[in-house]
Each structure stands twice: as C-alpha cells, then as structure tokens.
C-alpha cells in the first residue's frame, strides 16, 4: 500500500501508485484537474505527493507521448497565424507546468533528435533552463555557472537607453548611454525581450594583453580616441523637487526669489540663476551651493508673543540648492500641481559623464573591471591593418574564472563584424566555434583570433600574437564621480562635535577601534592623540568640587557654580565626547569629579 499525501496532509492509500499518478496526470491534461496540481511518486519512501499549494516554482515543458511530441507542426502554424495562443496549448495538454517534485519523475529531452519512447517531456527551448538576464549572456554553455549568474547580475547595473521617452520623464538618479548599440553577438532572448530597442552597451574592439601594468587586477585600459568617438559617454539625470505645502492657519510655502530680510538668507550670489517666479532657467550651469528653486516657509513656531512683535513676519528660507560636490546643467523645468492641488516644481539636472579612471566596465560574462588608464590612441598597440583596440583586457582574468564564453564571443563578434552580420550566441544552440573559425579564415584572418601587433610607443612588432576581436561592453552605473570623497576640515555633529559621517554630509573617514590599536602597538601615543583631536575642547575645571566651571569672557574670569570664584580653576584639554559623557552622568544623578594634578 502506498500512502498518499495531498497538500502535505495524509489522505489515504492506493494499491498501484504508478496507475494512480498516471491517472491524475491524464485527467490534468484533459482539463478535469487544475493545471497547477502536481503529482510526485517518491519510490524510496513509497509515497505519492499531490500538491496544489501556492509558492511552488513551476516551469512549462512540452508533453511527449511514445517518443513523439504533442506539439505538432499544425500547432506551430496556428501559433504563427495567431489562431491559437499559449492557453490553448495548455488546455490541449500540449504543454504543462511541472514543479520541482514532479520534475523528479519526468524524463526531459533537450532536443527533438534525442527523443526516445522513455521520454515524458521536452524543453520548449534549452534556454528555458536559465533565467532572463542569464540567457542574455552569449555562449552561456561555455561558462562557469556562477560567473554566468554574475554576468547576468552585472547587466542589470549597466547604463543604457532605459526608456525612449526619457526626455519627458522625471526619474530619480538615472544614467543614459548616449550612443548605445545593438550587440553583434546576440541571443534569442535579445530578440524576445526587444533588447535592440533599449540596448545597454557598445560593440568595441578588445585586445587581451598587458599594458605597462596599468591593467593588473582586473583593471582595463581604455583608448582615449574611443572615448572621443563616443565610447562610454553617459548623461546623469537627477530631479530636484519643491512643493508649496499648506500649514495650519492658512499659511503656505511660497516658491519665489526669497527676500533679503528672510531668516536664513544665503548670499545674493547663490540666488543669481533664479528668474522672477523663483525657478531656475533651463540650460543654466549650476555648481555646489547654487539655489535651483527659491522657496520660503512660514516660521516654525507661532507663539503669542509674535502677535505683538512687529517683526513677526519673518519667514524661513527653505530653497532647494545643490549639495556638496554636486554640479550639472538644468535640463528641464516642470511646473504643475500635486494631488492636493498645491504648486509643484520639478527641475531636472543633467550632468555629462565621460569615462574616467575608476569607472566600472564589464563584458557580459561577469568579467568586470575598472578603468586603470586612459591612453591616447597614438600610444595604443596596433595591428598590421592599423586597428587599435578600444579596450585592453588582462589575460590573467581568464584562467581562474574559466569564462570561455568571453573568449568565444570575441571570435564570434570579430567574425560578425568582418562578415557584416549578426551572430547567434544563444546558450546551447549557438553557432559553433568551428564554423566561426572557418568563416574567419575565409575572411582572411587567422582562425584562432590572434593577430600580430605592434607596440604603440616604439612601433616594434610584439613577439606574441595578440588575441584581438570585437566584444559587447557595458558601462556600469558605479562611477567614481558619484563616489569620490575626501576631507581635511568640514562639518561636525552638533551633539558630539565629532565629524559627520558619509560622503553626502562631507563626512570624515573614521579611524576605528582596530586602527587605533595599531597606533598603540607602535607606541605612537602622541600621534594617536593628535588623530583623535577632532573634538578636543578646553574646559575650566573647579579644583574644589571637580566639575566643569564657567568661564566669563567679559570679565576674563572663571567661576564655579557651586564653589563660587574663590577656588582654583584650571583649564583642561579633553575630548568633547568625554565632557558629554560626564554631563550625561550628571543627568543620571551620578556625580563625576575630575581631580587634577600637574601633568609634568
């Protein structure tokens, strides 16, 4: 007797599990059992599991009966003519969804040619095995699976032509590739996903070689000429938003050029770009601190005193201005209303980004790298026919990562570029490498993709033949100009008087606990003290009671709030954080005393 579980609950027993499972599957194909029900017979445990619950991953397969596909040419013709759709195939039992468990009982063929009477299913297409982004990697069956996943992941970060109506969109933080190209080596998924309407990369010439040590550790060398011809040039868009909010008491924000007597008024220079309505004009070149949208807000607290105060009409400055390190050109100004009918102003900033040292680029095979040097075209190595590579890629990135697909794409794209056609690189069904090589040879090239090259500086022929060809390269959204940061002096936190944290706040770079330990271990005690001087303060300490005294600047005299001014008061240099801790102790009812003695 075989136990039967329905949705993981024990329901009963059957005599012949195979017949039972077969009948359920049969009924499902007929449409008498819902499509999402899956059956699985576990032979070792002699148990049947019937499952129709949510949350299982299922995938479609073509049903095979007696070694023959249920999907006939008639079906295909009807599909092409759009007489039937996917749902009809499901209803007819031509295609069915299997979950991970039922797949265990299935025998799935890859291609029609390998069908035998034992097969139960066939893949719709071999790339149905892998996901959408992963199948965008050409020659994926020649690649290490983890690198394939990384390659797919990297493509999601690529800067491309994300939407053709970008000029009227107000997306936050987007990049746009100025001259995108369709890939030379594409997969069927590029076609399905209409990739060529929104491509994210460019076809470039890649040489696999070293270049004076500037491409060690996954760095790449970029040809300056290529950048000048448009490689990797992107635009960066970021909108600034201001609303006229309403407050209690009929008060509202006002988008305008702020008056000079307003609270928090910046300098006149900061408002120089604003037009009468208080909004900046398009194509204005703005930099750090410049006001884009002028705005004033009503005062924060309305006390009864203000009613009698003649100067009560003081409004606050609340303009939108560029933060530290930001710059750009005003691209687009939009004045509209928000959902509540308040005035809403959006100003889109545009910034031009040419590739620079530290920008991140990748091929489609998880071979990412940052720019190590930008070399003038005159210094780049060249082939006998005068081709200079756009990118030089280090050969050390290949052996340990085993991304053979990267190498095959190079030959494929080279063949495609020379023959003037696109190459199909779909995983499992791509054009074979042997054919590509044959074609490459017929085009007058060496069939292994190498060429004789000459040193760009000296013109000497190189001893080694260089593997060179075309490739589809992507610029990733991680750019140095968004990340570069340094600080000598700068803003501090109000509470602790220590430097702020993070690039956006122009923060300091923390010297942490373990870094501190290294100073101590070296015995560099005074250097350590200096490092931590960022919040040092001079406090007067009363020798009588040991708490912090008060310094009166007018009288140039210190006095103690408890002991008066007839006690000895000395100035002590401590960190402000410590002073703060002592204050917190006091607030807890703990009396911390500082007992002073001469340091020397």
């Amino acid at each position, binding site marked *: 007797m075989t136990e039967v579980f329905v949705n993981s609950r024990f329901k009963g027993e059957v005599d012949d599990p195979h017949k039972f499972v077969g009948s359920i599957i049969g009924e499902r194909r007929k449409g008498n059992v819902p499509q999402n029900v899956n059956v699985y017979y576990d032979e070792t445990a002699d148990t049947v599991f019937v499952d129709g619950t949510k949350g299982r991953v299922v995938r479609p397969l073509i049903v095979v009966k007696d070694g023959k596909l249920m999907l006939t040419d008639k079906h295909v013709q009807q599909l092409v003519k759009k007489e039937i759709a996917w749902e009809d195939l499901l209803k007819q039992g031509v295609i069915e969804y299997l979950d991970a468990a039922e797949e265990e009982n299935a025998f799935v063929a890859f291609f029609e040619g390998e069908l035998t009477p034992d097969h139960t299913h066939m893949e719709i297409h071999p790339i149905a095995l892998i996901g959408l982004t992963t199948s965008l990697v050409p020659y994926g069956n020649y690649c290490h699976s983890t690198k394939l996943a990384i390659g797919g992941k990297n493509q999601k970060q690529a800067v491309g032509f994300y939407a053709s109506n970008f000029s009227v969109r107000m997306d936050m933080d987007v990049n746009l590739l100025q001259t995108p190209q369709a890939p030379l080596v594409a997969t069927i998924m590029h076609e399905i996903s209409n990739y060529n309407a929104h491509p994210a990369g460019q076809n470039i010439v890649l040489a696999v070689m070293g270049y004076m040590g500037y491409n060690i550790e996954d760095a790449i060398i970029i040809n300056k000429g290529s950048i000048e011809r448009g490689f990797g040039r992107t635009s960066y868009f970021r909108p600034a938003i201001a609303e006229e909010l309403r407050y209690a008491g009929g008060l509202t924000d006002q988008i305008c050029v702020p008056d000079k007597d307003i609270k928090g008024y910046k300098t006149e220079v900061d408002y120089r770009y604003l037009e009468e309505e208080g909004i900046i004009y398009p194509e204005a070149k703005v930099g750090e601190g410049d006001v884009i949208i002028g705005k004033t807000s009503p005062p924060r607290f309305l006390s009864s005193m203000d009613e009698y105060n003649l100067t009560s009409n003081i409004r606050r400055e609340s303009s939108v201005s560029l933060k530290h390190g930001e710059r750009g050109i005003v691209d687009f100004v939009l004045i509209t209303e928000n959902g509540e009918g308040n005035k809403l102003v959006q100003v889109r900033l545009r910034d031009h980004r040419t590739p620079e040292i530290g920008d991140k680029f990748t091929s489609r095979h998880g071979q990412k790298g940052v720019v190590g040097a930008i070399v003038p075209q005159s210094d780049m190595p060249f082939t006998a026919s005068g081709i200079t590579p756009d990118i030089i890629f280090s050969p050390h990135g290949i052996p340990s990562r085993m991304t053979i697909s990267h190498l095959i794409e190079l030959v494929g794209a080279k063949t495609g570029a020379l023959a003037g056609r696109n190459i199909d690189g779909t995983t499992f069904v791509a054009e074979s490498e042997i054919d590509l090589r044959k074609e490459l040879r017929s085009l007058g090239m060496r069939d292994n993709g190498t060429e004789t090259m000459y040193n760009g500086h000296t013109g000497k022929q190189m001893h080694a033949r260089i593997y060179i060809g075309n490739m589809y390269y992507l610029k990733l959204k991680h750019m140095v100009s968004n990340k570069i940061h340094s600080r000598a002096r700068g803003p501090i936190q109000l509470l602790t008087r220590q430097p702020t944290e993070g690039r956006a706040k122009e923060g300091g770079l923390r010297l942490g606990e373990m870094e501190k330990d290294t100073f101590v271990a070296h015995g*560099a005690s*005074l250097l350590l003290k200096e490092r931590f001087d960022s919040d040092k303060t001079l406090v007067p300490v009363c020798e009588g009671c040991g708490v912090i005294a008060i310094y009166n600047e007018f009288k140039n005299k210190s006095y103690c709030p408890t002991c008066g001014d007839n006690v000895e008061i000395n100035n002590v240099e401590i960190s402000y954080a410590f002073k703060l*801790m002592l204050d917190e102790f006091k607030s807890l009812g703990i009396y911390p005393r500082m007992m002073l003695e001469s340091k020397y």
Partner: protein
Amino acid sequence: MDKLFKSYEGKIPENLLKDVKDNLPAKVDKAKAEKVLERVYSEYIESKVDAGESVGLIAAESIGEQGTQMTLNTFHYAGVAEMNVTVGLPRLIEILDGRKNISTPMMEIYLNKPYNKGKDIKQIALSIKETKLKDLTHEFSINIAELIIEVALDKKAIDSVGIDINLVGKKIEKALKAYEVKQKDNIITIKSIKEQPLNELYKIKEKLKGVHISGIKDVYQVLPVKRGEEFIIITAGSNLKAAFDNEYVDSNRTTTNNIFEVSNVLGVEAARQSIIDEVFKVIESQGLNIDKRHMMLVADMMCSSGVIKGVTRYGVVSEKASVLAKASFETPIKHIISAALLGEEDKLNSVVENVMLNQAVPVGTGLPGLQTKIDK
C-alpha cells in the same frame, strides 16, 4: 672559572648561564670565557622588551590577526566514532574564555614501562574506558507488584571487560543508599528499604543505568595509538585525577586538554603551561606561526591571580583597575553604576581611558615625563 661564572649570576638568567657552562669547550681560557659571557650578557640585554612597549596589544593583534584565517573547526580520528576534537577558532575561544566545561575533553595517557610496549594494549585501553551498568545489562525491569527493580546482566559483556560478576552487585550497593541489593548469578534485584512510590523507583532505574562499574570515570572512548617507540592511549572524556590513580598510567607524562582539571590536580603553574600548550596546539594545527611569547603573556594574565580567569568580563577584564576601561568593554551600565555606588576612582593609567579623554596614552612616546617637578 667558577668565580667568573659566579660573577655573572644575577646578570644572566640561571638556565642561560648553565647552557653556556655546559656548551663551553673543556679547554678554554678564562679570557675567552669572559668574552663569551660578556657577549651573552649583551645579547640578553638586547633581547629584553623595551620600556613602554605595548606587549599586550601586540600579543592580541598577533593572535587575533592570524585567528581570522582559521578554517576547519573539528578534527576526526579515523575509525573511531565519537572521537572528534574541537580545533580552530572555537577551541581558541574556549581556552581563552577559560570555560570550565570544554566541548571535547581529551586525555593523552602515557603508560608505565612494561605496559607501553604494545602487549595487551587493547585490554589496557578497555580497562581504562569507563564501563557503566547499562553497558553490562540485557534489560532493566520494574516489578510493579512488588516494587522491585530487576537487572539482567549480560555475561558476555562482563567477560569482555574482564571483571568479576559479583563485583557489579557490590558497586550498585555502594552507589545506592537505603536500598537492598541482592545478586543471584546474573540477576540483581533492588528493593527499597522504606516504602516508596513507583515514581521514585522509576527515577532510581534511570539512575542505575549510569552507575560506574569499572574503568576511569568520564572516559567514554579510548584509542590506542603508537607514538614513536611506545604506545599511548588517547581518550575522549577526561578525568586526570582518576587516571593518575590507575596502575598502568604514567602520571609524569599523562596530560589532559582540560585546563581546569590540570589546575585542580597539578596546580596553577601547570595550568599556565597547559594554556600555552593548548593554544600552541591550535595555532600549529592551523599551520599558522605565532611567537610563543604572545601566548605566554596571555597565559600569565589568566593565571596571575592564582586561579584561572578567562579573558571575559567576569575574568581578566573585571580585574582591571580602571572603571572607564571596564565600562568600555561589555556591560557599561553595570560598571558605571557600581563605580558610582562605591565612589570609585580612575587613575587614568592605561590605554582606553586616555583615548576616551583624548590624552596621550602612557605607552611608547607617551610614556616619558619630566624628572623635576615644575612650579606653577
């Protein structure tokens, strides 16, 4: 010559001086010997740690940095079930925390002269392994009508361990008080002298299973191993005191990896050496290379009070003189409150406190001060 050596006593450590004495060629004149001694002396002075060197932090960094590279947490002996040893970072943490109950206690038992040649080594090993009553019985049953526990002994098992069958009854009698134990060949009946509920009897039955019959208590696995010329026994489970009482065991060389046991049986100095050895074993097994002196320093810190203290907030850290230093390591509120209640004073003599106050730390360049006091 002796006079010359005598003059260096106190200048050069004793064992160093002895080394020189032993290794000096027999025919060496006094002038040359003095030259050697002077050189040894200057080398000795040279090798001393400088004043103000942060030895503790350097030790911590030296062990800590390498500690991040440790892989592999357990080691298994081939062929023996339950014989796995905690190594790597978990073991290091266990030692330095000063845990009383370590995860895999082990002993390396060296045997006395005639027994260490490998003859009857299996027999000896088995006699060391603890035998509990449950290892020697077919079944335990409770006679509910008469409130009697009946234990049916397994004769074969008893024979293989090699003990007298009547001994089992005596051992049970010893372990249980206020119970009447009778043995008839391989059946032992146990009856309570006082009237007792069935519950109690059941508890006693469970207790009986663990009654110690023979061997060294807590040693639940033995493995004879050939080391060099002789055979030793590696055990899982440790009981150093009982092992020393065993007639086969060479108590001079037998060790355990349980530091507290070493401390209890052999004293705190032995425990210090044991800490060093155990830490060194971990480091060595990971293929790392850390100077032994770092471990010696840590071991000294842990043992200096006479009992073993772990490097935790209850152990070494609680010994710190500074309130602020204690508070900056785990549980600050607890330390601040107790300092406030007791009116504790912080002399600001150590590293962390001075970093908090942004004062020069009294190590290295921050150490020197002025000899003369200056007037205000």
